[in-house]
């Protein structure tokens, strides 16, 4: 079944998507996820673009030496890696825990209330 592209939408017609969309658990997932993603995205963008802006328009700050020849610019550039990793870790922690749990509840609710029949055609799974 996996190979037949046109069947992609068929089982979807048996699902009441509005009902799932209106599920309070789904709304909770949507709200929490949106808040976290928007916050992290803004933090990440601001922090990253401080690097080219700082290097380009305020080189004086970057050239201050703090640890032998190591200056603010090098430390700031290195800190970019740490910040990116922290953002990834924060998102992954929330995602692996709370968001995955909420999504599973939404799926379970949908099946229990009969708005969704379990997918008929199990895809053939390729091994790896």
């Amino acid at each position: 079944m996996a190979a037949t592209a046109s069947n992609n939408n068929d089982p979807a017609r048996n699902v009441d998507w509005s009902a799932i969309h209106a599920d309070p658990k789904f709304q909770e997932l949507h709200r929490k996820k949106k808040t976290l993603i928007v916050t992290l995205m803004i933090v990440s963008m601001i922090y990253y673009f401080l690097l080219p802006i700082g290097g380009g328009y305020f080189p004086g700050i970057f050239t201050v030496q703090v640890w032998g020849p190591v200056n603010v610019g090098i430390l700031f550039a290195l800190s970019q890696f740490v910040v990116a990793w922290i953002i990834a870790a924060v998102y992954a922690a929330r995602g692996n825990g709370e968001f995955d749990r909420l999504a599973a509840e939404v799926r379970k609710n949908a099946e229990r209330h009969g708005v969704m029949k379990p997918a008929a055609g199990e895809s053939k799974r390729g091994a790896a």
Partner: protein
Amino acid sequence: MKSKIMQGGLLVAISLSPCTALAQGAVSSEWRWLTIVVFGAIIALTLLVTFIAAKRVSSASDYYAAGSGISGLQNGWAIAGDYLSAASFLGIAGLIALYGFDGFLYSVGFLVAFVTVLLVIAEPCRNIGKYTLSDILAFRNNPRTARVMGSLSIITVSIFYLTAQMVGGGLLVELIVGIDYTVSVIAVGVLMLVYVLFGGMLATTWVQIIKAVLLVIAAILLTILAWAPYGFSLPGLLDAVISDQKVLAQVVKLLGGAGNMNEAELGQLFLEPGLFLTRPLDLISLGLGLVLGTASLPHILMRFFTVPDAKQARKSVVWAMAIIGGFYVITLILGMSAAINVGALDIATFDEGGNMAAPLLAQHLGGGPDALLGNLLLAFVAAVAFATIVAVVAGLVLACSAAIAHDLYVNVFRGGHAEPAEQVRAARVATLIVGAIAITIGILAEGQNVAHLVGLAFAVAASANLPCLLLTLYWRRCNTGGIVAGILVGTLSAVALVMVSPNMTYPLIETADAQAVVDAGPATIKEIRADMAAAKSPGERKSLESQIAAVKDQVAAATADVKTYEGQTESMLGLRAPLFPLENPGIVSIPLGFLAVFLGSLLWRDRRAEEMWEETYVRQQTGILSSAGAAH
């Protein structure tokens, strides 16, 4: 593509220029056997993997998405293998070796780009996509129209990127090993075709994993060897950098004179911004292209269809960020070590773009060109570079052929009615065609400077694909009109801006620059001669002598340039000077792309897109009915 890049490329890229001095490659002929052994071992390993994978490819899902059976950890390594192209592996170490701090700025952008992938792209795309980016665009919009637009953009981006990889790859293999350019291009192309045709995505994935593991091993090994003498201290290494004569000479060369600075001040400049990237706006524009473009590069996006669910997609990105980030952090050590151990001058003698910094550093750390270990390390780095090119090209060809076979042939031309066997056949035929095109372009484009094409690929992805993907996933009002407008405006504006940018060749400017080099030549040589008279050690004298030779080479090349452009006054578009001042179009073309999706959606009525919103949003958030057909 008659253009020649100047003043440092968009996006690092492979700005190789075959050099007069060493057309024979970095490996001397007596050590050629060692290189062949190392290359042979790595190629044999990848072919073995392909052989095993080939038995498991029976459906289109196997061919394009490895049956969605790859784990998050495996996919993280494969993403690293797909993403760390020769440009980023060799190019960034080279840029740091040549330009110090400014080179390191590139490293940062390449990692931060994955924050966008993680937060907004990876999971939704896994949940509602199947094999290609167009699957997501077609989900709630008019399927045929969206697929045609999506595949247009996938093909554009992949061909730009592919051309840069083939030309750069051919030159790299020629430079390092000394095989003829055309033979190198054919070798890369044929090997890649073997992986993809027989083993599909499963073989491609494992080739990418093997390559990433080898690359990380090589990088760690070199870092330990290079950094140990300084007790793994950052200030210790950098102290050696700023007081190194070769570094000082490079800084003076970049500044065009020492001014009235003393040696300590000059050396410190190598660790400060401004030696390479002199226009901040260009750097911001580049950053935008990177941070938003990576998330919608077709070959990267395609990797998320190989995992079973959103959780594994998320894990893939986290692993990829750990591997890619770790790699880019140590490019700082590798680049700085190359600057003191090999020296900018020697690096640039092989290749002005700096791509030889890492291979030459490997050779030096192993004891130099005459030592067994030196040549073994060089052979290892060279083989990793070769595997890198093949692995990246394989990912690109697979993405491009999926757009042709899955989007255009099966879904648009055949209206989705194709038997599984026919789908796999179509995929293989498309792969063969794209592979043949890649090899042909690679051979035809020999000697062309294609560095700006990598930047252009990122810019088109960021300006066309990303606005469409993001808004169709997250904006209720987005519809087919927006997708059409976004892809067209984003692609055309990015390409058009590059065509009138300083990336193109402007004969008047080229002539003036070359003339300046010719005019300055005698004075520079006189200056170095004066230094030579004052030089104490024979080593110092020798290095100054090679500087004189380099200046003479530069003058000769500049004289030739002046002759080449004699009588020409206009670029290929008939311009005397660039219309657009920046090399990177992102800062203008990305907002234009977003604007086009907004306006196109608002001006268009599309009931299906509106009706499908709740389904789209629920499915991309929860993975209900995802094509991987996993547990839920």
